[in-house]
């Protein structure tokens, strides 16, 4: 859905992003192709869900966006400027304020010797967001209330071990909100939480998006939760984004054979006896060390064609915002850069 009045310019526009990790000794030049030619954009107030199995490169992708690791190729455009060019060595304080990250493990991301108040106050101090001590405390309490941690004054005095996993994840969100971010990168924020409290965190993401126009990149291995919060869903496989589009479209009318395989594997009690279109893809995710050219799914794909093993296809636009990279739907535009075939 278009966001009215705010420009439809994307907030974040990632183009051809790649990451190759060198491995082995100095005499070997083997590389792990963790992320290859990934492009997507996020508009203000939009939730983009990045779905993939472990090793698909989704975490590496947002860690590059968060500037925690360096990209080996491509562009990260934030509000129109390629920040890899303007801030090549490290991200500016301004960028780090606008782009915040939430991690998977709410047990590991909080310091056990500090109170919740300390955790939430810290970014406010670093970014000069409070005028006085009293103001600082008032803001901490306000933030805790925003993430529905009440009574805020009491929660603020506690230590991380005195909170449940869900409460800790809310503290992490409050800490991210402290600096008025425009984009929050959430890396599997619910996968370590108890099932009964997961929806609370997803609903919080939803309300922050609606109430504050904060954009999210939501990373998950779970298609159902991607559909639940994601305005757009992107599917990653072995370092490549293979299909993207509105959540309902991806779930209801997926066209890439890998997306179809993934969908057929999701337990779905609501479907009753109706079986999903059978997808007979065997085998497992290929090694990412100096992979052969072509589509990474070719080795497992039930519909593989000769051209699939030559080069990765470009982007074919289908209905509306739905697109796919698969030769079944044509060679696509902007065939992938030399990167995919060099090796």
């Amino acid at each position: 859905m278009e966001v009215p009045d705010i420009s439809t310019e994307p907030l974040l526009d990632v183009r051809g992003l790649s990451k190759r990790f060198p491995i082995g000794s100095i005499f070997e030049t083997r590389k792990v192709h963790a992320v290859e030619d990934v492009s997507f954009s996020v508009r203000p107030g939009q939730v983009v869900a990045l779905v993939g199995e472990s090793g698909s490169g989704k975490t590496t992708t947002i860690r590059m966006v968060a500037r925690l690791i360096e990209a080996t190729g491509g562009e990260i455009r934030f509000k129109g400027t390629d920040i890899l060019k303007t801030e090549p060595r490290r991200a500016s304080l301004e960028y780090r304020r606008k782009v915040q990250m939430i991690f998977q493990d709410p047990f590991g991301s909080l310091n056990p010797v500090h109170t919740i108040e300390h955790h939430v106050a810290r970014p406010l101090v670093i970014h000069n967001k409070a005028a006085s001590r009293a103001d600082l405390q008032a803001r901490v309490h306000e933030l805790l209330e925003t993430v529905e941690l009440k009574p805020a004054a009491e929660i603020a005095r506690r230590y991380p071990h005195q909170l449940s996993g869900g409460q800790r994840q809310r503290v992490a969100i409050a800490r991210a909100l402290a600096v008025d971010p425009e984009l929050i990168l959430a890396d599997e924020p619910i996968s370590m939480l108890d099932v009964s409290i997961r929806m609370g965190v997803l609903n919080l993401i939803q309300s922050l998006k609606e109430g504050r126009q904060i954009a999210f990149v939501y990373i998950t291995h779970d298609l159902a939760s991607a559909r639940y919060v994601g305005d757009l869903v992107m599917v990653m496989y072995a370092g490549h984004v293979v299909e993207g589009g509105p959540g309902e479209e991806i779930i209801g009318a997926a066209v890439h054979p890998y997306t179809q395989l993934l969908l057929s594997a999701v337990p779905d009690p609501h479907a009753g006896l109706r079986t999903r279109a059978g997808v007979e893809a065997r085998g497992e995710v290929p090694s990412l060390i100096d992979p052969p050219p072509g589509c990474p799914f070719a080795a497992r794909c039930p519909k593989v064609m000769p051209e699939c093993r030559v080069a990765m296809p470009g982007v074919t636009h289908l209905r509306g915002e739905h697109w796919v990279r698969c030769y079944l739907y044509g060679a696509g535009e902007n065939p992938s850069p030399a990167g995919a075939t060099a090796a």
Partner: protein
Amino acid sequence: MSQMPEAPLLDVRGLRVDYLTANGRVRAVNGVSLAVKEGEVVGLAGESGSGKSTIAHAILRILRPPALITGGEVLFAGQDTLKMDDAQLEAFRWSRVSIVFQSAMNSLNPVLSVREQLVDVMQNHGLTKEQANRRAGELFQLIGIEPRRLDSYPHELSGGMRQRTVIAMALALNPDLLILDEPTTALDVVVQKDILLQMARLREALGLAVLFITHDLSLLVEFSGRILIMYAGELVEGAPARTLFDQPLHPYTVGLMNSFPSISGEKRRLTGIPGSPPDLISPPTGCRFHPRCPKAMAVCSQAAPEMKIVSPEHSVACHLY
């Protein structure tokens, strides 16, 4: 519970397990009764800390201090495993009941080939080396890995293959009951589906009974006959999988159903369950779920509800019924 024509294979009655911690006694399992009939798949669902794994460990008597079984009986084919001595336990574990742990794939010894590890288990239980080797080949075929992979070391196999190897090990001595404790939680969905489908086929072929423990209710609806729901160390509801899914009665079960987004049907807002699971050192009085229950009444904080049979196969512990 309901009267069965024949004695169930596994019959757990009023099981209680305590953990003795520095902060006090934690009653992890509080009077749980459950039965698994021959050839049946029973799903046990609950959140972390609900006591579901503790039950599995108690059945096999592999609990370690500070965990202590403080009451109840575990009858397996009529024999109380809680009264078995070490020699009896040796003969009982693995040959009658075996278990696959969560991320058991990481428990394989990295310096031995998987063949050596499989053969070792079988030799320990009285097979000759030749018999064990032959059986290892059969098991790999059964579980869907090429037998030539038997000579691989664990690091040469993918996570899915390692987990299959552990399942093969659990099946080595033809047990009557297999306990699966979150067997696929650490795996990707595509691999998970593959393994579970294979397990379903195997189970039918071997006539094995399965106690399937997981936090993922949607998996159980697909893969088990009957589902039992645990909350804070107690069973709160039990019913055939479909019935439980279509007509959950306990407010906690209803809440759990409301905690899983689906990939089909109308997209609707899900609320999950407010609050967090309780601290078992000082559990809530009365019904342990009452502080989070949207339908709590005055009685709920005073008296713990008894398990009631509401229809021949459906029982629930809630004051509403």
